[in-house]
């Protein structure tokens, strides 16, 4: 099909103003939050399931790949266009279709921004638990595709634990509902199999998600430690004690310094690590848990503790953690954010290894991460204008991932495999393992035209067309 006819066909479906195809306009859609890029033939902005279905059916007839796209905040290149593909941006489909407070669920469109859901149901005393740090921008559809996590997933689980049912457009344009508004019905757990499929099994056009009641009481504690090792030990102590914090977040020396320099936050200059711990529940439970957490942190050598229960005071405690990524921007023009995960008892060992990688490669590495579930986010600082630095940074990232796998961890805790890590998949999975995953995909998307080239090794991958990862400003509500 000639490009002109294709564009006309797309315009007939979504309307003339909702197809972008001029090369200059396409530039903005070459990227996501990751380091890769690619150019689509066109980007379309459907406004309904039927339009999505028609666009997908047209592409299928013509043998053209399609790439779903939410807000483009993905960090592994999942939404990067395959060559010659049609990118389907779901950002116009952002309505909350139904809130069922009695059954604590909502039916939403895929382009809805994560935080907007929690904000809208707040008056009913409810919220949507998975809270990726990008929640001010990322979409529910993107969250479903990546099975996104967030700081509070420590207690409440990640996206897959909160999705009940999905309306999905399959590669031939057919529209199908999978799952039910409740769990326990007959048949395979298709929703469970679909969540985390990185846009490669179908396009989510509606999602039924669980909502949780807002807790009666919340307490945030900040513990400052002279050394990172002590903070890591405190994490293990708290987890091992039987307490169930909702979040446990850590910042290392370099991040603290960056935050101090940028925001003058008042952390001790010589602090080795800061741990943020949150507990929630009914008041009696919260004060009991908070007291235990404090005692355990002190026992592990915390030099200073602050606590808050009132919302604005808690927000102040979180501010340093949330501003860390932005603050790191002041230390270097570029950063490469690595996402690895290890058993939490291995944190200490792996963080030491990260330190060695930093020394060996000569790049400073800051650690700001979800310590409670062992999800590391080493942030490698560099300047891409320096010749040869970029490939060395990627290699250092690879070293860290290998270290994670060596101690029984995995390649990604929440950002997905996408283009970024597909070449590393054989570190963790055999060909047979990957084949089983492909079978699952083929059940949903046999032709392979749905977001091709991601997750599985082979074909172009990360590093080709590496671009400087621009620092996301903290005032956009973005942090990691």
């Amino acid at each position, binding site marked *: 099909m000639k490009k002109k006819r294709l564009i006309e066909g797309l315009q007939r479906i979504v309307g003339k103003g909702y197809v972008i195809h001029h090369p200059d306009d396409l530039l903005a859609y070459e990227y996501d939050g990751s380091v890769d890029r690619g150019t689509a033939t066109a980007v379309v902005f459907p406004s309904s399931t039927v339009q999505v279905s028609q666009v997908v059916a047209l592409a299928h007839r013509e043998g053209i790949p399609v790439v779903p796209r939410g807000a483009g905040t993905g960090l592994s290149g999942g939404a990067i266009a395959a060559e010659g593909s049609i990118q389907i941006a779901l950002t116009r489909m952002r309505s909350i279709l139904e809130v069922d407070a009695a059954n604590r669920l909502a039916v939403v469109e895929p382009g809805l921004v994560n935080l907007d859901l929690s904000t809208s149901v707040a008056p009913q005393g409810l919220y949507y638990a998975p809270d990726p740090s990008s929640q001010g921008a990322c979409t529910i559809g993107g969250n479903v595709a990546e099975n996104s996590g967030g700081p509070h997933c420590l207690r409440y689980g990640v996206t897959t634990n909160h999705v009940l049912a999905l309306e999905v457009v399959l590669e031939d344009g057919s529209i199908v509902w999978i799952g039910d508004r409740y769990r326990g*019905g007959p048949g395979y757990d298709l929703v469970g199999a679909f969540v985390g499929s990185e846009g490669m099994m179908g396009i989510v056009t509606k999602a039924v998600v669980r909502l949780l009641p807002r807790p009666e009481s919340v307490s945030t504690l900040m513990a400052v430690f002279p050394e990172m090792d002590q903070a890591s030990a405190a994490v293990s102590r708290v987890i091992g004690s039987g307490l169930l914090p909702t979040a446990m977040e850590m910042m290392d020396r370099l991040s603290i310094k960056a935050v101090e320099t940028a925001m003058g936050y008042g952390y001790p200059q010589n602090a080795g690590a800061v741990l943020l711990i949150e507990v929630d529940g009914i008041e009696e439970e919260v004060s009991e848990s908070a007291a235990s957490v404090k005692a355990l942190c002190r026992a592990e050598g915390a030099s200073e503790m602050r606590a808050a229960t009132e919302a604005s005071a808690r927000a102040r405690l979180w501010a340093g953690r949330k501003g860390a990524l932005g603050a790191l921007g002041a230390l270097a023009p570029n950063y490469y954010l690595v996402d690895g995960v290890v*058993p939490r008892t291995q944190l200490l060992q792996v963080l030491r290894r990260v330190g060695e990688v930093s020394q060996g490669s000569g790049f400073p590495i800051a650690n700001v991460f979800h310590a409670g579930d062992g999800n590391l986010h080493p942030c490698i600082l560099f300047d891409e204008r320096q010749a040869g630095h970029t490939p060395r940074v990627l290699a250092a990232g690879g070293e860290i991932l290998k270290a994670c796998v060596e101690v029984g961890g995995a390649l990604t805790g929440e950002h997905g495999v996408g283009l970024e890590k597909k070449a590393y998949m054989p570190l963790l999975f055999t060909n047979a393992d990957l084949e089983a995953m492909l079978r699952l995909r083929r*059940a949903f998307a046999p032709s392979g035209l749905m977001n091709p080239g991601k997750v599985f090794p082979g074909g172009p991958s990360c590093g080709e067309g590496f671009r400087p990862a621009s620092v996301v400003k903290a005032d956009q509500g973005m942090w990691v």
Partner: protein
Amino acid sequence: MRAKATSTIALRERLATLLPPEAIAPASDMARYAVDGVVPQAVALPASVEQLSAALRLANDQGWVVAVRGSGALMEYGGVPKGVDLVLGLERMASAIDHAPGDLTVTVGAGVRLAALQEALGKAGQWLPVDPPLAGRQTMGGMLATNLSGPLSLAYGGLRDMVIGMRVAGPDGVVTKSGGKVVKNVTGFDVGKAHIGALGTLGVVLEASFKVAPLPKKDVTLVALFDSLAQAIKASHELLAHPSAPQALEVVLMGMNRRDDEGRMRQPTCNLYARLLGSEGAMERRLADCSRLLVQSRAVNVQPAGSQAAGQTWEWLADFGWDPQAGSGLLVRLGCLPSQVGELSQGIEEMMLRELHQGSLVVGPGRGVAKVFMPGLKWADADTAGTAVEALRGLAAGVQGYAVVERCPLPAKATLDVWGNPGDGLALMRRLKEQMDPRGVLNPGRYVGGI
């Protein structure tokens, strides 16, 4: 798709070329391994993954129909198989429990009994917060394949929320893994989810890794007596909406249509059981909150249960309808949105009164589940069972819910679609089955839509 079955002797001989004698059950044992009355031609009892893979590969090559078996506790679940050539029993498989207390994770072989796992976890003050039927007998593999969750799923979710990794043998004997041993992981597709509740139709689960939880410091049960089921369910919703909500809450309507010695119809009793699990400091207030709400919601009598009685009650509730002592009968699980459980269970109650069916009802208002068990051999009659199941399905449809027959005596069971309509996703489910088990050797006919 199925190749012409080999003769029994040939089948056993072929197995004997691959497996040591102790891994093949004697011919005299076949009846013991029957699945819903369908007697297999041979039973393989592999003691290693290699042996298991070899047996599977042979079956797949020959097109023999394979039924996988754990302890056999829940073999009744699922449709009557169209035929069984080979039963693959996992009871001799290595039973390693690899517990990492500091990580709150455990990796455990499919042949391990849930009770053994709980005992090992308990030593470190942890548990897997599940209470499926017959927890004392069933194996991990059986538990994952049947995915029958109990009252605790109200607070802790289902197995799907606890499994973090899985190793599975495909019908060709090839072993694959997904996930891992970390609590947060998006490396690769979540194939493991497809196997949970798949009744062994997509592969043989060999091993699974789980997130576990600390054992709660306090475990208290309140019992409240109500005049009517409707009243008890209304009270349940009051409790569940409160910050002090219990971790498990079930309502029981016991002994419907039973006559006393003089032949008078007895009133069924209606009890609400609320189980509060959690920390020491909060328990006093939570108990007070729950008791007050129950009294306000017109409970006739509210009191805490002694810990031994409470333990027995929750076991009874979990085993409801499955307890071998209850004998055979018709056990149906119905489900819908929590807000409609009242309407659904009222419908079931009215139906039972109208039809004079004896039996009991256990309702999980927060879980959106109502289970009805009607004991007796009358349910072996196809018409009687069929009519009741149809009526229950009608009630479920009225609330956009489902009704799954968990148990039904033979021969009636063979005439029933035990699963009912799984909805819009059936075509995808068939495609998944074709991808994972292309020759259709794993448990054919026992799953939804005849899969």
